[in-house]
């Protein structure tokens, strides 16, 4: 009995959390690739966003992009454009679209989609080289996307 109550309570809490978050398959891209609405409804944290950009195990954005504001992080790549001034060049909605799935803005871009779970060729279980045993998770969570967008918005020339 007690267990049932607890489970029910957990389900309600879980349900509320899910309701506020847009799942990868439900994301609506505007013409041109922007995402107008926050994926979580919770304001992004730019400090955590910088962490996501820097960490190999998270976004690892600096693997391809130079970011002067993250000069203390070693080895910035030169594959994509430098992100300095991104907050001037793009609106928050455009930044959200670029981080979630840049292919909606730039057709054929090399940049991986960080908030997408299907449409892949031979997707694997992370970096194991094996087929996945469960549905794929997006590369970043909805809140991590919002955090990255919040950080990018601070990059003004």
């Amino acid at each position, binding site marked *: 009995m007690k267990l049932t109550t607890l489970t029910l309570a957990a389900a309600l809490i879980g349900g509320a959390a899910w309701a506020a978050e847009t799942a990868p398959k439900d994301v609506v891209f505007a013409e041109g690739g922007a995402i107008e609405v926050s994926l979580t409804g919770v304001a992004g944290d730019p400090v955590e966003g910088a962490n996501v950009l820097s960490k190999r195990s998270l976004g690892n954005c600096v693997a391809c992009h130079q970011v002067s504001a993250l000069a203390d992080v070693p080895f910035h790549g*030169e*594959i994509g*454009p*430098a992100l300095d001034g991104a907050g001037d060049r793009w609106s928050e909605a455009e930044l959200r679209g670029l981080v979630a799935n840049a292919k909606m803005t730039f057709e054929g871009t*090399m940049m991986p989609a960080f908030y997408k779970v299907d449409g892949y060729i031979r*997707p694997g279980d992370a970096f194991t080289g094996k087929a996945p045993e469960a549905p794929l998770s997006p590369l970043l969570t909805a809140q991590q996307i919002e955090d990255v967008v919040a950080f990018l918005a601070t990059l003004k020339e």
Partner: protein
Amino acid sequence: MRFKAMTAIAALVAAPLAVMAGPDDDELVINGEINIVTKTAAPAHLDGALTEIYSGWRFRSDETQALEMDDFENPGMVAVDAAREVWDTVDGSEGKACASCHNAVEDSMVGVKAVYPKWNEGAGEVRTLEMQVNDCRTSRMGAEAWKYEGGEMTAMSALIAMQSRGLPVNVAIDGPVQTAWEQGKEMYYTRYGQLELSCANCHEDNWGNMIRADHLSQGQINGFPTYRLKNTKLNAVHDRFKGCIRDTRAETFKPGSPEFVALELYVASRGNGLSVEGPSVRN
């Protein structure tokens, strides 16, 4: 258009910070006598996708480059020396060693690696050097097949490759191998895995650029088997393919699989004109 413009701006911004840009101009001569072509005109079938082709050696640091310039410094030669003994050692039910049919490796294997993978008429299939070695072991020697990308096979493959050092890679792409070559080409441009990356994304569109701390080469395989400082052993080319595809967060293919045989044929052909360089040294 917008993207191109951004890329151009990025290049200007990035320039002062870049540690290296593109391949260097160093020339590779091994043991002071074997001239290795590490830069040459791209083969016609690349159709302008690359105008010049470069060995991965050109993208490495002076220290790493030096290890390949002298066989006494090349850490891959330890395995090659072991393979040299195996060449002369009888194995299997038929009482034969490699040398029983092929005599001295320095004579019989000259030029062999340069044309592999190639069509085997009797078997009706494209064969890699490793497949041919295992066919010799099982059907002629009555010996156990070696693991495709295992240490014994990779060492033997390095010993054989070494006999062609300095000779140009010259893999056939038409005739009976054409279907496999087309398959390999399609794989080269397929964006695998959750990161949706093809071979071409890094090695055709971004060679010379840094991706985090790695300096991207053209992904040429003329230097395989390759001794990697990263894992301190000789690496088979299919093992490298496996790792690359795994790193796109994909379900990778198996060493020795028909897919990797086709990919090896295609990627080898992109290096037609470079010298055979194996066993090379990379990081």
